[in-house]
Every structure is written in C-alpha cells, then in structure tokens.
C-alpha cells in the first residue's frame, strides 16, 4: 500500500518510514571541539567589531569567540546570554548571512565569514548541556508584571524581569510556550525539541509563572491586567494571515503556511502527516521557504515557491533561497496568483507574470498554471487582537525606543510592535530592553 512522492493527491507516508528522521535532522550539526577551535581561530578580534554592531542584541562576538578559543565555552555562553537569553535559538535561526556574518571583515576580505552562528551554538549548547543556569534572581521587589505572549519577546522580557526580582506571569494562547520558536520555524533548524528545552532552561531563573490557553479578548483584558499588575508587556505576535486576493482561494487544500508549519512541528509522527504531490507555496519570506522545504522533505514530488517580485526583493535571504533550491524547490520570481482552480479542492493555480515599474508591480498579461494539490499562503502575517484604544502605526502597536506604547504602564515588543525586522533576535532585543525600562519605571519609587 505504500505511498510514494508520485501518489496523487494529499497523502501521508510518501517516504519509507525510517527516512523521516534523517530528512528532518539538524541542518547544521553542532561543531565538535576541534572544529570550534579552528573556526574560532579565524576571528580577528576586531576593534569595535562590526559583527557586534550588526547584532540586534549587540552580543560581544569577538569576546565570546576568544572565550571559545581558550577552552571556556561556558564563559562564552555567558557573554552571549548576557545580551540575548535566547542565544541558543538565535544561533540556529538567525539569518546570520544578513546580520553578523554579513559584516564580518573576513566576509568582506574573502567572502568567507567567521562562522559566528555555529560558534554561538557551540558555546550555548555547551553550557546548556551542563544544565547550568548562570543567573540568580535579585531580591524580590514585590512588583508583578504581566507578559502577554510567550514567544521570543515575551520570554526575553520575562527572564530579564524575573532576574531583577519581579514576579512575572506569562500568558499564551497556545498550549506550549515558545511562540514561533515552537510553532513557526522549520523543524530542521531546531530539532530534538530544542525550543522547549530552551524554555525549560530559561525558566530555571524562577519567578515566572506560565498560564497557557489565555489571550487578549479570550480570558484576558488589558484593563484587567492593568488592574492586577504593576506593568504589562504585550508580545502577542502577528496572529492574522494575509489573504491571496485570488479568485477561488477558498478551495479545499489552500492553507496558511504558518498552520502547516505549526502542525508539522507538533506532529508526533511525520510519516502520518499528509502532504500534496504537487505543492505550491506563495510568498517570498522565511515562512515560505520553511513551508516549501518541509513539504519537499515530507516527500512531495513537486514543490514550487512563487514570489510576486524579483529575487532581490525577496525577504528570504540568498542563503535561504539556495537552501530551498538545494532541496529541490523550484522558485518562480515575478509571478502573482490570479485564480485557484478545482472542483471543490484545488487542482491548479494560475499566475500572471509581473514587472516592476518605478516600484509598482504590474501584470504583464502573460499567465501560466501550476498543478497543485496543496497551496500554502505565506504572504505575510498581520496584527490581530491588539487591545482597543492602543495606538497603531503601520499595522503594528506603536512603541518608542524602549517599548512604551501609547498607554501608560503598557509596553510592547516583538513582531506585534513597530520598529525592527520581524526576527527572533529583534524580538529578544525588544523584550530585553522593554524589561529594563519597566524595571527602571517600577523602581522609581
């Protein structure tokens, strides 16, 4: 009965049972000790290092690499965690090729940067493997802070607040903490339950209570939180998904990429997870790549990724695009969806080629169709469930440099807040900085 990539329709078990583990294994296994020493030796220990400036959390990269080189990866990890408590996940998911490694002087000199991301993982893994949590809470302040959303921004804020001696209650709509780390990224970037391990490690700080299954508008109100807590930090992410605005997009088999990724991440047995023979992913970001690559890894015969603009505009980095291509994903540029065809369920999807003129996108009139059993929409997420009356700018909660919203006593950070890219590392930085500001405010007296 066994299925293959050629089995028509949407079906599970396209691959031999034993191959799933290898398909979804670690994309970049951790460096061994010797590899780490050699990689670390390439660092020039730059003065006022560009990598450190490029990091949204300003990790002291030259220092932590030197600590690795001298055989103290635990000290290196401490240097990382001081700035970025989710340094372990960021080492796995950061687009380092557009951040620290892009500006590494060796990238400029040789086109081959110091492997900062992998070294960061080496250090953070070493410390976490020891089960050590290198921080101790300050004396209790008696202050209580509510953190709404247990994703990267919420976790970073909660940890920093707990560290300062405040009591933190962290709420999340989903059954597990971690946010996109747990539900929203490709599994080969953080295999072996890393997101939960990291949360558990982070929680060792103490003073953080987690309440899941609760979100604003569903069990929580901002008024209630403001009344019960000394400060509120909103890190609710982007829960909404943009529509294709293509005819027939309600057809069966047309799904949100984030749901597919989330389902895949939570699946106990990947061989039971159905995937189409012909999968089309629409979008040009990391979510699109994560969905496309994983569809391919699940055994889909043909996976296409279609992006309405040109290669240079794609928000997935060149590295991500190459990863997709290397896994067998075909990428179409300058093509926008026009209509979804099928009798109830999607069978084909039609695109129109586009051209960019003076920044605006125009259809060329030329169209093509791709066969599709499954279409994943990955054309961006939107703010959903923001509290009434809070100032919104550019579709996000307006915040200042330290995360203060238009409502006194309420801070926000992460993808739901204005400013910065929608990256894990940016979310961590915003959560951390908002926590510092909340702390300063609460201790004013």
């Amino acid at each position: 009965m066994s299925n293959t990539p050629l089995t028509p329709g949407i079906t599970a078990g396209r691959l031999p049972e034993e191959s799933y583990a290898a398909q979804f294994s670690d994309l970049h296994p951790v460096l061994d000790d010797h590899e780490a020493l050699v990689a670390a030796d390439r660092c020039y220990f730059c003065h006022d290092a560009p990598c450190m400036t490029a990091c949204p959390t300003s990790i002291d990269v030259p220092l932590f690499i030197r600590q690795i080189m001298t055989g103290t990866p635990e000290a290196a990890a401490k240097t990382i965690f001081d700035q970025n408590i989710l340094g372990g996940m960021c080492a796995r998911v950061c687009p380092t090729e557009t951040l620290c490694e892009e500006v590494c002087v060796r990238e400029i000199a040789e086109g081959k940067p110091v492997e900062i991301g992998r070294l960061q993982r080496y250090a953070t893994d070493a410390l976490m493997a020891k089960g050590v949590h290198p921080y101790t809470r300050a004396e209790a302040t008696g202050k209580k802070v509510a953190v709404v959303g247990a994703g990267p921004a919420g976790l970073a804020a909660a940890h920093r607040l707990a560290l300062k001696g405040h009591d933190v209650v962290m709420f999340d709509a989903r059954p597990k903490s971690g946010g996109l780390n747990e539900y929203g990224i490709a599994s080969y970037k953080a295999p072996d339950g890393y997101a939960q391990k990291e949360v558990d490690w982070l929680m060792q700080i103490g003073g953080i209570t987690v309440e899941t299954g609760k979100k604003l508008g569903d069990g929580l109100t901002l008024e209630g939180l403001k009344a019960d807590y000394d400060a509120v930090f909103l890190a609710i992410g982007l829960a909404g998904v943009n529509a294709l605005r293509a005819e027939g997009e309600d057809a069966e088999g047309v799904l949100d990429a984030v749901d597919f990724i989330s389902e895949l991440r939570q699946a106990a047995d990947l061989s039971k997870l159905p995937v189409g023979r012909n999968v089309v992913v629409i979008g040009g970001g990391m979510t699109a790549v994560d969905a496309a690559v994983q569809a391919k890894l699940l055994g889909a015969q043909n996976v296409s990724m279609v992006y309405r603009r040109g290669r240079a505009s794609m928000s997935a980095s060149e590295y991500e695009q190459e990863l997709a291509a290397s896994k067998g994903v075909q990428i179409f540029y300058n093509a926008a969806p026009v209509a979804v065809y099928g009798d109830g369920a999607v069978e084909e999807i039609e695109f129109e080629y586009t051209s960019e003129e003076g920044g605006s996108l125009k259809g060329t009139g030329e169209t093509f169709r791709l066969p599709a059993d499954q279409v994943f929409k990955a054309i961006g997420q939107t703010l959903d469930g923001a509290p009434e009356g809070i100032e919104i700018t550019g579709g996000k909660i307006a915040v200042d440099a330290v995360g203060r919203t238009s409502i006194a006593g309420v801070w926000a950070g992460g993808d739901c807040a204005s400013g910065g890219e929608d990256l894990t590392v940016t979310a961590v930085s915003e959560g951390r900085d908002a926590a510092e500001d909340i702390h300063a405010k609460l201790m004013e007296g």
Partner: protein
Amino acid sequence: MADLTSTFCGITSPNPFWLASAPPTDKEYNVRRAFEAGWGGVVWKTLGEEGPPVVNVNGPRYGAIHGADRRLLGLNNIELITDRPLEVNLEEMTRVKKDYPDRALIASVMVPCDADSWKNIIPRIAETGCDGFELNFGCPHGMAERGMGSAVGQVPEYIEMVTRWCKESTDLPVIVKLTPNITNILYPAEAALRGGADAVSLINTINSITSVNLDAFSPEPMIDGKGTHGGYCGPAVKPIAMNMVAEIARNPATAKLPISGIGGVTTWRDAAEFMALGAGNVQVCTAAMTYGFKIVEEMISGLSQYLDEKEMALSDLVGKATPNVTDWQYLNLNHVTKAVINQDDCINCGRCYAACEDTSHQAIEMSPDRTFTVKDDECVACNLCVNVCPIEGCITMKTLGKGEVDERTGKPVGDYANWTTHPNNVAAVSAE
C-alpha cells in the same frame, strides 16, 4: 635545477639537508628510509658508552605547543641518547654507510667527561666508515644531570678539552654541537675552535616546560604526576637559533668556523635563511618528526628554485646576509619611515588601531565609517601595525627621501648617522 651538492667541513653530501641526531636517526631502518627519501646526510642518534645502554622513561617523552588547527609549533622532549647497545649501532652504521657512500653519515657521541672514555670510543666508531663526529654537548635534560650533554656545553673549558681529546683521536672532521642554554654563544663557540673543532652545530634544544596540567598541577609531559624540564625545539625556536648562528658567523674570531644550522628548520625557506646568516648546511628534526621524511623533497625543490631565480650557487648563499647583521649602535637613525595603510586592501578590522591606540604611539586615526589612517606626525614607524594586520601587504612602511620633513620631529631627513655620533650619546660627545 641548481646543484645542491654541499661540502661542509670537508664532508660532501648531495644536498645540505641533514637529519639531526634524534629519534629519526635512531637505527638502520629509519636511516635507510631517510636516505631513500632524499636526505643528504644523517647524524646518527647519539652513541653512549659501551655496556648497558641508558633507559628511557616509559611514559610520554614529548610535549607540544599547538596552533588552533593542531599545527605543531614547538616540541619538547625528555628522551635520552640511544638506548640500544653500542655494538648494534656500530654494525648498523657500517652497513648503511657502505650502501650509501654518497651520503653524509655523522656519529653523534656523548660519553663521560674523561679522556679515556672519549679516546677509546672515537677510533672504534671511526671503523664504521662514518664521515665525521658530532660531539653532543647540548642535551639539556637527563644526561646533563650525569655530567654530560649541556653540563659540558655550559663550561667552555670542558668543551675545549673534550674537543681536543677527540681531535687527537681521529683525522675525521669533528663538529661540536652547542647548547643554547648559556649566556653568550660566543664563549662555547670560541672554546670549540680553540679545541680544534672543524665546525660547530647549533642549537641543541632549549630548557623548557611546555605546559602545566591544571588539574594535576604537574608539568607536561607528565610521568606519574611529575614532570621535568625537557628540550624545546621546532618552529618556535628558529628565531633564537638564527640569532646564535649569526653571532658566531659575524664574530671575527669564529667567522671562518663552519656552522651547521639547527633549530626549527621546517621548509626550504627556513634553510635558506639559516644559510644566508652563515650556516653551511642545516639539520632538521622536528619537521621530519611532524610530517615524515618526505618533506625533504619540498626543501630540495624550493631551495633549487630559489637559487635558480637568484642565479646563485649554493656556496654563494652561505653568509650572504652575515655582513648585514650589525649592532644596534650602527643602525641608521636618519632612516625615517612611516606606516601607510592601503585603503583598497584594508578590511577595516581595526587591529592596527587597537594595537597603536592601546599599546603604541596613538598614531592611527579611526573615522566613524571605520576608515583607518596613519597620523604621520605621531607615527614612529614601529611596525606593530604591520605585524598585527591580518592582510599581508596592506600596511607598508614608506621610506622618506633625503630632505623630506619628518612630520613627527619637524626635521628634514639627513645623511646616514648612528648612535655613536648622536648628540644625546654622552660617550659620543665626550669623545669629541
């Protein structure tokens, strides 16, 4: 291909690359393979007295200093002289020399410091057909505790005395191997010359502790929780060895004494540098112990290519740099240079800035966009920026021409003048 045939204190070998007396030259099996690999000569592992041979430790004999990719930079050993019976060594030497008549076979010797010991053993060894002797006055560990090796090499009178005994016992060339564990290499070198030595070879290994085990709190190599100083060798010791070679080569009393250069010779370039400073040939050990005998092929091809490119004979290379080794007091104080950073090559790492700003003369400026430029009015031309720059050739030293104004001192560059005539030199002024 340049002819690499070398004649060193009367001993001819097809090339100037000899294997030093050490484990690689321990026995017939190794030495035959070394000759097959192309080595020009071999100094057989040091022979000791007849009778029960010395014993070695049964734990680790070596310690090492590594670069990040385990490149071996320095090696330390606590091995003693040959631990095989004298007769066995002599038989093997005889066989090998007979089969490789064109290669140099030198017998390294170390026996107690009395006339009989030396005068008895030298003629016996000569019967092997060896081309000469090397007196091991260098080993700093183990044997020195028994009054041999560097214990002799540290007392010029003993060097002279033993050398004389040996010269009285043979017509073959006698090379005296010197220890670097002394204050001034000229005293032992001159003593060897007075004793009649045909040549000196240097350096033997340097007293050293390579590492300390921070769990067991013992030097390494660690033998049952204890360590002892060993002899340091390998690439790390080359600068020390080259200085000692140059000092002997430029010292009028020893200038004509042939020198076999030893100490970290790893490539043809190292060999060429030793020879330019005055070494007639070189001896290699650590490089062979690290990479095997085959490295001699690179040494032969590299040195040949270099000599061809320079249109020089091997003998022309020997001592070619010696006249340019001088005392500090004769260096031209009116040679003024300034660091120049090539902005096209610069990768903006800022190492030059950190080095200059924190530890030197605050002569490099950093702009907000990370452009690094030299402040000529502060630059003393120390060269530290050149040395710490990761890009070869990015920072260079520009020499100011005569008459150009040095912005740091405000003075124009003058003719050659050195410390001996400098106004700040009290000795110079009083001499006028």
